[in-house]
């Protein structure tokens, strides 16, 4: 994270990738499929949000662990700000998904196991922010919320990766629905999709670095 704050080149990379993703995502040829039709393009915007969220939460947990082992305030700031951006990505993923589901599944919320699990996952992180808000003492807040962050991430993993697989899901690739591989014979989607994951994740980290720098400055002014 320190490296990302210090350097700049990856921001240019992010911009280039996102321009490519937006142009490619809206204009490139996509497979013609019944029901899905053009909505297949949501793949480049909806799925990367979840990837971005997971990477941001992972970075947040890593900094929480770092805080617990070193006790440096900046690690706590990084951990909390990364979680904020992660939650924003999660909400965006949920909105894009519900928008897509309205046109393909017929309703925004169909009690799909993945939808339910991600809603609960977001609740866990909202609880994290409420926990942060409810402790006055700064050191105590940092410590307790770091502990909860690790605990919450451990609960998130079975929630997002194990439980939805146990029941049928409406999502492509689950419960007998054709997945990525079946649609994408000429790998056109893949080219854009993988870069989209990278691009949106980097954008998330970019936003996080700005928020972290702002908080670090506030911290400096307090001293």
């Amino acid at each position, binding site marked *: 994270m320190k490296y990302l704050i210090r350097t700049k080149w990856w921001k240019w990379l992010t911009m280039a990738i996102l321009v490519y993703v937006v142009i490619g995502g809206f204009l490139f040829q996509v497979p013609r499929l019944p029901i899905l039709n053009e909505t297949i393009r949501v793949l480049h915007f909806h799925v990367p949000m979840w990837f971005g969220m997971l990477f941001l939460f992972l970075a947040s947990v890593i900094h929480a662990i770092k805080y617990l082992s070193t006790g440096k305030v900046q690690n706590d700031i990084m951990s909390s700000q990364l979680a904020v951006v992660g939650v924003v990505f999660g909400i965006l993923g949920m909105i894009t998904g519900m928008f897509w589901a309205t046109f393909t599944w017929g309703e925004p919320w169909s009690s799909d196991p993945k939808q339910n699990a991600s809603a609960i996952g977001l609740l*866990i992180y909202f*609880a994290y922010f409420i*926990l942060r808000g409810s402790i006055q003492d700064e050191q105590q807040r940092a410590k307790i919320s770091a*502990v909860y962050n*690790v605990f919450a991430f451990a*609960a998130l993993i079975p929630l997002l990766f194990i439980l939805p697989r*146990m*029941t049928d899901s409406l999502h492509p690739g689950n419960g007998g629905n054709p997945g990525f591989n079946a649609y994408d014979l000429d790998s056109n989607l893949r080219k854009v999709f993988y870069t989209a994951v990278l691009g949106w994740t980097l954008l998330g980290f970019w936003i996080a670095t700005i928020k972290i720098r702002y908080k670090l400055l506030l911290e400096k002014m307090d001293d």
Partner: protein
Amino acid sequence: MSGIINFSNVMFKQLQWLIIKDLRIDWRTKYPIAGILLYITSLIITSYLAFTGFINPETWNALFWLILLFVSINAVAKSFAQEEDRSSYYFYLIKPSRIIIAKLIYYGIYQLLLIAIALIVFSVFLGFPVKTSGPFFLNLILGSLGLSSAFTMVSSISSKTNNNSVMMAILGFPVIIPILLLAISNSKILVLGGSIADITANLITLLSVNVIIIALSFILFPFTWKS
């Protein structure tokens, strides 16, 4: 060799002492246990009055687990809340990892007792439609141990905040859902007459989630205790 034996002797003595201390506190104050017993009965009678006449096995199962969830969160919430003013004198004497082990053991047993009582009262009022009862009890024990250990850890976190009881629910419910979903779906299969072979994979997942939670409590608890 004698050093190791001596060390484990000390550890067992401390664990024993901590568990007996909790038992004594509960025995002397009495009202928390009496309160939770009253809570169980009134919860069950309310649900009996609400559901009587049209309850089917699936509803029975869902209702039973919901009652367990509320009993468990209320019973375990006090585990660290009661330590606030007492903790100071053994704070320096005993390792935090032993304190959490003692708490996990004590509240695991406490939870199992409460659930046995809840199950008896529940079946008196709403019947006992379970078709495969052996595996049902196994799943019940695993699920409730998961609930009690997760809530014990959450209680240690929420006892540090200003609004203990509300924070307990906010922090606890989302974290507990993986365990609860696994246990409820297992239990539903068994209530409807499935065999243990139908749920083996789920049961192993449930067990491993429990192990993860206990291991994490063990690692993370020292940080909350010392702050």
